[in-house]
Each structure stands twice: as C-alpha cells, then as structure tokens.
C-alpha cells in the first residue's frame, strides 16, 4: 500500500514548499504562529519554526486588517496567504476582498495585481451552527477578478494550494472541516493541480453529477449505489468553482444527456443555478431531462445534529433526482 497523506498535511506541505521557494510567501491569520499553536486546525504547524514570525504572523482578531495587509503586501510583490479562520468571518473583510483584492488589477489598468490566497474553512456536520458553517462560494464566484477553489481530497488540496499561491490573481481557497482528516495516496512533493481544470472522478454514461468539495464523496457513494440498479453515473469534481471548467462539464453532459448539480451551499442563487443555466444554453435540445440542482436547505445552518443532518443535501434525495432524470418523459 502506498503512503497516505491527509488534507491537513497536504495543505501544510503545499504552503511549506511555497515558503521554502519564495521569501515573498507569507502567512497572516489569527493564531497561525507556533506560539498560538500553529492555527486552530493546525494547517500552519511547524512553519514558524522554519520561517520565523515575520513570515508567519499571528494577528489580532481583525479580519479587515488581515486581508488589507495581505492586499498591500501583494501590491508590493509578495504572495501573501490570509487565513480567515471560518468562512462566515469573511463578511467582516468583504470590502478588502471585493472592492480591493478583486478590482485593483482592473481599476489600475493592469499596473498592479493582487496575488493573494485567502484560505478559509467551513462545513456542515460538526455542530457549529449558524455562524460557523456557511458555504459562501457563490458570493465570491459572482465577483469579477476572484478565483474560487475548493478541494475534495488531499492530493488535490496540495496541488490546488500550490497553484493558488502561484496564481497572480486573488484566490479564495475553501477547505471543508470534515475533509481535513481524509487520506489520499501521497502525490509526493511538488505536486501541482492547475486552476480551472475539473476532474472526472468517476466515469459514467447515463447522468452527470457535477459537484465539488465534501459533496463529491456523497456523489461517489450515490454513483456506487445506482450502479447496482444499472444506472451509470459520471461524477465531475469541479475543483475550481470560478472560473469553472465549462468544457469538461459540457462534454460530460453532452455524453450522458442528464445532469445534476450538487453542492452544500443553499440552492437558491447558488453555483448550481449558474451551471444549470449554462448547460441549458449550450445543450438545449440535446438534454434528455432538465438539469436539476440539489443544495442545502434555505435556512441558517442549525446546531442540533438531527436538524443539521436534515439541512445537508440528502443522499436519498440525490439518488431520487438521478432516477427521476432517468425516467423523464418530458
């Protein structure tokens, strides 16, 4: 059996490699330095010891100041990584992200750019409740100038993080708490996964499930279940949510004729709406069933486990949606 690596180790390794190669790679965030324990989720463990407190800076609880400092450092030629401890806290820093990081390349006519990575984590299923669990990727995907990435496994986490740090545009990098412990075959040092390229995680011929992040696991489980019923499901892991790999998605759905977009964020006005609409524009007349979407319930994420489980996209509902598409009579 080959060596295994967790998502946590993979992200740590990617940052470590980038910091070793380039002194301009710095890390700013609450509790990220060794003295504070190397980050709440230990992503930056060991980095202060190697690169010092100037490059791994534990900050006050000041999200605007964290992202703003990263914007400024990026303008000066650095490749800063901002850790925003939980995704809901990006709300505090939206001005710096949306008005500054995203727009400065354009507004300056290309004279300056902001190569920063904003790392953040979130996820439904750990009982954090309404203000620590939101998936807000659609907010950022809606903003011209931002790239949005989320890995579903350790090898991709490592490779996408390297690509995000190397990218000359600002990247929102979303990590799912429930994925941190997942193991993949160790891709080895120097692994890079280019931004904007989706993975066909499982090939199939009857229906495409287009998803990203933790729900890739659900999609694979459902694909396996439906295989037993003679339904062949193709699973596309977007990896980069914005700009997404439209060519791969379109080719898959052209082949299968059916598509379901699945994500943890609420369905309304989400990424699924965008992808479904684009598939409709590209493949109208070739689809064997309407493109459907499954997302989280339209409420704040509840704390109580029973409610939280009811909030998350339901696996039986995913399977039913595929069956409905298979039996669509028009």
């Amino acid at each position, binding site marked *: 059996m080959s060596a295994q690596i967790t998502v946590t180790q993979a992200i740590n390794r990617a940052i470590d490699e980038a910091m070793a190669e380039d002194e301009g790679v710095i890390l700013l965030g609450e509790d990220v330095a060794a003295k504070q324990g190397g980050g709440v989720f230990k992503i930056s463990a060991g980095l202060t010891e190697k690169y010092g407190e100037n490059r791994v800076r534990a900050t006050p609880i*000041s999200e*605007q100041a964290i992202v703003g400092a990263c914007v400024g450092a990026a303008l000066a030629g650095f490749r800063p990584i901002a850790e925003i401890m939980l995704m809901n806290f990006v709300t505090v820093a939206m001005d710096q992200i949306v008005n500054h990081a995203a727009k400065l*390349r354009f507004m300056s006519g290309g004279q300056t750019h902001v190569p920063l990575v904003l790392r953040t984590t979130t996820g439904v299923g750990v009982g954090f409740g309404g203000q620590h669990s939101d998936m807000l990727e659609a907010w950022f995907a809606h903003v011209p100038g931002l790239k949005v990435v989320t890995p579903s496994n350790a090898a991709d986490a490592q490779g996408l993080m390297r690509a995000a740090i190397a990218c000359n545009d600002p990247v929102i990098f979303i990590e799912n708490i429930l994925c941190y412990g997942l193991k993949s075959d160790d891709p080895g040092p120097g692994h890079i996964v280019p931004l904007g390229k989706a993975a066909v995680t499982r090939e199939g011929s009857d229906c495409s499930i287009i998803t990203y992040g933790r729900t890739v696991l659900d999609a694979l489980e459902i694909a396996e279940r439906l295989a037993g019923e003679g339904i062949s499901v193709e699973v596309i892991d977007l990896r980069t949510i914005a700009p997404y790999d439209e060519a791969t998605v379109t080719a898959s759905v052209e082949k299968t004729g059916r598509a379901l977009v699945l994500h943890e964020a609420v369905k309304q006005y989400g990424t699924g709406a965008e992808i479904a609409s684009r598939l409709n524009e590209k493949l109208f007349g070739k689809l064997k069933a309407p493109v459907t979407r499954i997302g989280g319930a339209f409420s704040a994420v509840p704390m109580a486990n029973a409610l939280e489980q009811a909030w998350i996209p339901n696996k039986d509902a995913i399977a039913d949606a595929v069956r409905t598409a298979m039996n669509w009579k028009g």
Partner: protein
Amino acid sequence: MTETIDRDKLRDIYTRTMRVARADEKFRSLLMTGKLAVIYYTVRGQELVSAAAMAALEQDDYLVTTYRGQHDQIAKGVPLNPLFAEIAGKVGGTCRGKGGSMHITHPDSGVMVTTGVVGSGLPIANGLALASQNRGDGKVTIVCFGDGATNIGAFHEAMNMAQLWKLPVIFLCQNNRYGEHTAFADHTKVDSIVTRAKAYGMEGVKVDGNDAILMYNTTKAAVDRARAGEGPTLIEAMCYRMMGHFFGADFSYMPKEHLAEMAAEDPLPRLRQLMLDHQFSEAELDAIVADLDVQMDAAAEFAANSPLPGPEEIRKDVFEEEIAA
C-alpha cells in the same frame, strides 16, 4: 517654536503646492466650460498639506490615498498628462481610463492605491509597509485620509496592527472638518483625532497643516522614525475643505462664518507670504506658476486628444489572462 527649513526644500514645497493648485483650478475650469463632464472632488483648501508632506518622502516611498487625493497624487509626483487623461476617462490615462479620479494608481510615483471606500486604505498601507519591513528596503508608506475615515472600523484595526508590528507607515489624517456633509463635531465626540493615537500606544502629532514648514518637519520626523524601525505615526493635519463634497455640489450646510474663517486660512496666499518672507522674489514665484500653467494646458490638451478606451478593455485586467468575449 522656531522652525527652520532648507531654501531648496521650501521652493520644492511651493512648486508642489502650486502644481496641485493650478491643476485643481484647471479641472474646475474644464468642468465649468463643459469641456469635461465627470465627478470631481476638488482639493481647494488642502493643497499645501499634502505638498509639504510628500516633499518629505522619496519617489519610491508608497502612497495610499482616497477619492479626494489629487493633491496627494500630484504632490507625490504622478505626471500630469496621464493624470488628466485618467480623470477624463481616456486611454492615455494612468489606468487606461478604467480607474478615474477615484481610483488613480501610478506605481512609478509610489501611488499604489486610490480608494473610493472611505477608510479602507489604512489596512492596505499596513501591508505595503509590512513588505518593506520584511524586505528591509527602507521604504516608508504614507496613507492619507480625512477626519470622516477615522470612524470606520478599518481605521482602528489598522492602527492597532501597525503599532503592534512597528510598521514603517505614516497615517496622515487631513482633518478638513467635514465627512461628506457632516461637520466634524457631528461625527466625532473627541476633540481631536490625534488623541486616538494614544489609545493604540502610537506616536501622534497634531499640526496646522497649512503651516508649510511645520507640516514638512512633522512629516520628516515621522519618516525618519519609520525608517529607523521605530514604528508608525499618526499625524492630524488641520486644514479646510473650502468647497462642497464634490465640485458643483451645494454646500449651504457649511456655516457662512465658518467659510469666512476658511478664506482667512487659505493656504495659498499664506504660503506666498511665507516665500516672500524667505526672500523669494515675486518674479521667481510668478515664473514657477507660469511654467506650471503651460504644463496644465499641455496636460488638458493631451487628455482631450487621447482616445476613449475601446470595449475590448472590459475583457482585459479582470484576471491576468484575458477573459472570453
């Protein structure tokens, strides 16, 4: 306190001040004659404060400023031709017409960000200063903002972080007595912005921003402190915004007696008198202005003749790679 200054530096400050003043005059004239139709935030009354401050900096020091930042940009050294063209929205502008007066960037002059979001420049200035600190390149970052900006959270977060890390940054509050239409006393309970420096353990200095020598020496001291690794300084420079929030806007909310007080404090005649007191001749001062006016005419012509940006510009600079049509 007796303030002294080098004669060449005084001439430098005068020239910077008048470059700002003549440019502002030119813009207002272009607007009034209908040759330009853009939103314009006049800097009338604040010319000297930034001229004296920027004279204490090097060209490659960084500046972050706000939508009312033309005096800062010109004093810092942004060339007039592309600046005029940018404000006119032309392709020959600093930002190819994609920024406009509220979003001027010109890295060759150290002008890294001009923001239309009040107070948001301070955290960014910290980042520029952090880069200089890590590199040890000796650069200083100055961030300009008005009194109104000191009530946004970003101001407080940035002040705390800058002092915590001893960043080489200067927070230059140009207290022009108004945040948009709201007078200072109606938006801030403390008497003075500089008292807030104390809350963050930061060096703070309140000065008459229209006193050229004092303004220059105060900024120079802050620059020296920053370069020596002694950390940030908050300077509260008192000045007046002599017109409304944007050019042409009603400013009847500004009391008449206050406006009269402003007129009496006008930095331009005051600076001219200072120059005469320092044995500069009327002829020399007039010659400087005459030369500047030739430059203003040339810049206005450059802007008028510069083409408008084509629609293909919309696809460029969103990301590094051009986006699809």
